């Protein structure tokens, strides 16, 4: 595919009609075929040194997350400590990519990390529903950035998207991107609410056109979150976007990935769809919390040949 000059794609966002024509002109998605491909890649058998590589890579890709009403500074400090040193018995374990918290916890997280090479990601824009005015969303974002967030995880306005008001969604992402400043922007679609794969492909392109640094499946707060199929579809989107524009965008599946086996399946999807360029925490993340302990137990098993059990990893 030839790389198009940036202007060629800027035209598609010139008006609501142009944007709609472009998004609806993207190739359709056959759900049966998409899910079959994701399932087939799920049968890859990852053993020995390949497994060790994948486990460490997965740990390094985790946005270790706590997004509860009950979050306290103590809970966030514990999470930050775990992100820096996931396995207190084994210093060779990589750190996670980031901790992910609500905006009012960013300062606590930043201080707890104390300069370690772990980013602070903050959800913003009236997460998780996104039902607030743009002003509120931007204030939420600026708040998080001012407190030191390195990354902003925003939610799109699913209501506007489902009503076909694509330009509104686009402009909101643009505004949040601007308010994020130097922080990298992850755009959450809440794929479970978009419901169809065609919608997920359109949302992916919409987000990328608006300047997302990452496209992210879900908030973790609804019934259906990251699945192999919706992540595969988003990996196809970033692959095609780079082929067309030269710009590489990251992908973050979030919610529902709990076991090492699942995480490795997602890494296989990355490897065989977007390609090895995405096998790095700058370009691929897992939004997860309980996943980390399972990865650590598998890591200990590979190192010692024995399963240790849940008392040998730390509770959050």
């Amino acid at each position, binding site marked *: *595919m030839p790389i198009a000059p940036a202007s060629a794609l800027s035209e598609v966002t010139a008006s609501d009609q142009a944007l709609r024509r472009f998004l609806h002109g993207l190739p359709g998605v056959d759900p049966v075929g998409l899910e079959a491909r994701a399932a087939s890649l799920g049968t890859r058998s990852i053993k020995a040194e390949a497994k060790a590589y994948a486990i460490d890579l997965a740990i390094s890709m985790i946005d270790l997350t706590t997004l509860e009403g009950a979050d306290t500074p103590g809970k966030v400090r514990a999470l930050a400590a775990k992100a820096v040193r996931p396995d207190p018995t084994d210093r060779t374990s990589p750190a996670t990519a980031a901790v992910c918290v609500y905006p009012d916890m960013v300062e606590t997280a930043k201080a707890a990390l104390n300069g370690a090479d772990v980013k602070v990601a903050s959800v913003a824009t009236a997460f998780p529903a996104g039902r607030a005015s743009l002003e509120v969303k931007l204030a939420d974002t600026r708040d998080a950035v001012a407190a030191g967030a390195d990354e902003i995880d925003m939610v799109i306005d699913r209501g506007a998207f489902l009503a076909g008001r694509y330009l509104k969604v686009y402009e909101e992402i643009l505004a949040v991107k601007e308010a994020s400043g130097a922080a990298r922007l992850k755009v959450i679609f809440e794929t479970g609410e978009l419901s169809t794969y065609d919608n997920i492909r359109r949302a992916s392109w919409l987000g990328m056109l608006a300047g997302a640094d990452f496209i992210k499946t879900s908030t973790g707060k609804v019934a259906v979150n990251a699945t192999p199929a919706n992540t595969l579809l988003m990996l196809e989107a970033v692959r095609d976007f780079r082929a067309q524009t030269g710009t590489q965008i990251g992908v973050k599946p979030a919610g529902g990935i709990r076991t090492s086996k699942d995480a490795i399946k997602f890494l296989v999807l990355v490897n065989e769809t977007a390609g090895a360029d995405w096998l790095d925490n700058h370009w691929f993340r897992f939004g997860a919390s309980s996943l980390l302990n399972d990865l650590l137990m598998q890591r200990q098993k590979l190192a010692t040949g024995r399963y240790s059990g849940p008392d040998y990893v730390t509770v959050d």
Partner: protein
Amino acid sequence: MTTETTPAGPFAYAPAPESRAVVDIAPSYGLFIDGEFTESSGQDRAKTLSPATEEVLAEYTQANAEDVDRAVKAARKAFEKWSALPGAERAKYLFRIARIIQERSRELAVLETLDNGKPIRETRDADLPLVAAHFFYYAGWADKLDHAGYGRNPRPLGVAGQVIPWNFPLLMLAWKIAPALATGNTVVLKPAETTPLSALFFADICRQAGLPRGVVNIVTGDGRTGEALVSHPGVDKVAFTGSTAVGKAIARRIAGTDKRVTLELGGKGANIVFDDAPVDQAVEGIVNGIFFNQGQVCCAGSRLLVQESIQDELLDSLKRRLATLRLGDPLDKNTDIGAINSAEQLARITALADTGEAEGAERWSAPCELPSAGYWFAPTLFTGVTQAHTVARDEIFGPVLSVLSFRTPDEAVAKANNSQYGLSAGIWTEKGSRMLAVASKLRAGVVWANTFNKFDPTSPFGGYKESGFGREGGRHGLEAYLAPATPKGER
């Protein structure tokens, strides 16, 4: 053998071989006649190889005409009691066979991969589940034949002589034996000369299931054995799956006899991709259509007909995808492309691909390193192909895709139908009305829409034109093994 040729990158998959220890192959096999393994009256032996390594797996018997006669007589003797059993009783045996196949599926998958060369991923996830499903499905029909649409009390034909190919040895056995037994026939089956082992293991399963002696007989050997079987006067029904040339020879051989016959022969399936196709799934469907089982599939989508307006884009995507196929040790669970079944078949594929090049089509092969031992052919596609090229007309029966283009739906239909064959076709479009309109105009036994190479025991399968006649699978598959119902008053 650990050759894996996928782009290594940082995430190189370690070898993940399925264990060979689950299958116990004897050094030598006899024939399965009248419920037991027996020796041939002659001395003729042959060897079967693992096509991935050229290692000899076992010796087997080249059955002669005398052996075939013994097998047909055993089947005839068994027919009387077997056909008189109530359908529900026959069903019990078939259900039992299906369950044993499920229980032994790992062993059979490894065996099939060793003898055939196809990847364990396919034998484990496609062949074996379908084999068991086929027996389960026809077991269900055995006591419901009155309601199959062939009148009250339809009768079996007698002894079925069945000859099957090497591309899906156990699955083709299931397609032949399950409907024959469900309808009350007895069988003599000859597996292909390069893949006799799974049929011999199936013989053991028949014993394990307590199937009455002589209901299933397995005779191994080459074309001479097959000829003796189809020519035998005691055979009432001939069922053959294989090449069109041999199918024609069989039709000539039995012309003038009262034998019933079904033939499932070659194909040159057209996979039609319209400009509004779901592109990523179409690419998967093209790959599955022609590289499943190394393209050694009679219904393979070996002709890609792509709308000219998206041709370049689609070919880029397809080549990128082909570069990720993992070719190598068929027992490795991550292998996508296994070995070609025999030196003979490899020579045929090689010659036809060379012809394609000589006739001016542009050849492209996925970048991959072929193992030094065994029979291998890299996934290959030809562009710049027209209807006049040999690679667009002849069945290659290998991992070679010919890419042609079209401009309008009518042109797509005309080109797809412009073939001596008519076994399968595929349509890729997001527009339902176009899908239905095109499907109704295609002269092909199976038309897949937004998928390819999907099989199910409930679905009839068979061809138009030189792809053969008769249907296997589904309710239609019963017809091939049933005589018309006895008219009222004669019962």
